[in-house]
């Protein structure tokens, strides 16, 4: 497992032992995962012997069940995406997207899910895409999708709120990225990119196309688990603790009258509140769970979450280096409108 440089002798061989090890690990993972609920009930109600009907006992049981559940889900998903990611490099994405229009928006948004991305590399990535001849609108589809629709957000939404909310978020997040990028591509905004970016003669494809071994891919995936889970576990525990309190003490729907979807201004307000807030998915999903638990409308909450992640003030400051102010304004306007649409749509149909 340790060797990253034992070259082609192992890389070309069919990785049977990794498949067996992977299946074994998955079986152990599932055995543990499926026993979390009975274990939490046994621990709180039998071993500690608390009264099943007491609120404190219910809150504690919820916490003891949800925390390992979400952490285990996150570990599995981040590891799987890590393996996938070891195949998808930015250099490859750049080649795939070069010179494509409408279909490119769809492709860019989908690739945004799995391509490694951090907001600090938004600028070099933007330059890389522009110099490869990727249309501006397609580039924006990628820039919107990459931070907003990712495996951490989806794993947390699934773990805390179920597959329906996670699925809705995936579909609507992709739609916003595709739609906003497509609209911006039709607006001929190229002249609002800073001039120096267009003058760059990029050394084409200088990034090494690493031929990773399977050991290397597994190590890469394990590294991303260590890094991501190590970074977000505090938020998750805090969020679940808050959720446990709500679960045990606040009667369902009590606050629906205040934060529900009745008022037309609740969606735009939540988008506006979301812009100055800067957080990644790990920080915002527990808040979303708390809001939903208090009876807030799903559309309003989804709009809030997308606004926090996709429209952030610090990212605009970073993008200002390559985009003229007008283009940034258009970016915020178009993406914001897309998010508003998502919010209203779900408040209307649910």
């Amino acid at each position, binding site marked *: 497992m340790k060797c*990253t*440089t034992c070259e082609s002798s192992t890389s070309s061989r069919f990785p049977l032992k990794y498949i067996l090890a992977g299946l074994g690990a998955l079986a152990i993972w599932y055995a543990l995962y499926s026993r979390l609920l009975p274990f939490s009930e046994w621990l709180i109600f039998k071993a500690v012997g608390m009264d099943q009907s007491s609120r404190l006992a219910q809150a504690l049981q919820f916490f003891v069940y949800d925390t390992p559940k979400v952490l285990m889900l996150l570990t599995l998903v981040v590891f799987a995406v890590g393996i996938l990611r070891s195949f998808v*490099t*930015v*250099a490859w994405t*750049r080649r795939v997207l070069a010179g494509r229009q409408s279909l490119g928006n769809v492709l860019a948004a989908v690739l945004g899910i799995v391509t*490694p991305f*951090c907001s*600090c*590399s938004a*600028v*070099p*990535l933007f*330059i*890389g*895409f522009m*110099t490869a001849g990727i249309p501006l609108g397609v580039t924006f589809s990628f820039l919107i999708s990459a931070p907003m629709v990712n495996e951490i957000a989806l794993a947390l939404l699934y773990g805390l709120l179920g597959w329906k909310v996670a699925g809705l978020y995936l579909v609507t997040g992709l739609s916003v990225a595709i739609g906003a990028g497509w609209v911006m591509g039709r607006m001929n905004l190229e002249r609002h990119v800073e001039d*120096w970016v267009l003058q*760059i*003669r*990029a*050394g*084409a*494809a*200088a*990034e*090494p196309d690493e031929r990773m071994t399977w050991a290397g891919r597994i190590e*890469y995936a394990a*590294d991303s688990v260590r890094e991501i889970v190590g970074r977000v576990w505090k938020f998750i525990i805090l969020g679940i603790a808050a959720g446990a309190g709500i679960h045990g003490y606040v009667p369902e729907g009590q606050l629906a009258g205040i934060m529900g979807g009745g008022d037309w201004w609740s969606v735009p307000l939540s988008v506006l509140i979301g812009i100055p807030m800067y957080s990644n998915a790990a920080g915002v999903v527990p808040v979303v769970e708390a809001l939903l638990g208090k009876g807030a409308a799903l559309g309003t909450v989804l709009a809030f979450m997308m606004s926090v992640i996709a429209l952030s003030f610090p990212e605009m400051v*970073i993008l200002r*280096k*390559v985009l003229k102010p007008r283009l940034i304004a258009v970016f915020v306007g178009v993406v914001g409108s897309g998010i508003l649409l998502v919010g209203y749509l779900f408040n209307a149909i649910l």
Partner: protein
Amino acid sequence: MKHVQVLGPGCAKCDETAKVVQEAIAESGAEASFEKVTDFGVMASLGVFTTPAVVVDGQVKVVGKVPKKADVVAWLSA
């Protein structure tokens, strides 16, 4: 004498990469000059679009992740 460049606008991973590279240079005792590149134009001209990245004598060695110290030492002695 090798010329080592660490490319990155100053995110946490970029700082970590710079640290790993500087330690590798110090510990291996290799003759190498160290430079931190934060200019996006320079990065693009080197053909790098994902940060952090390490470039040795104009050759891109790693992009998008923090390298291992042993790998950096290997590049220095190659």
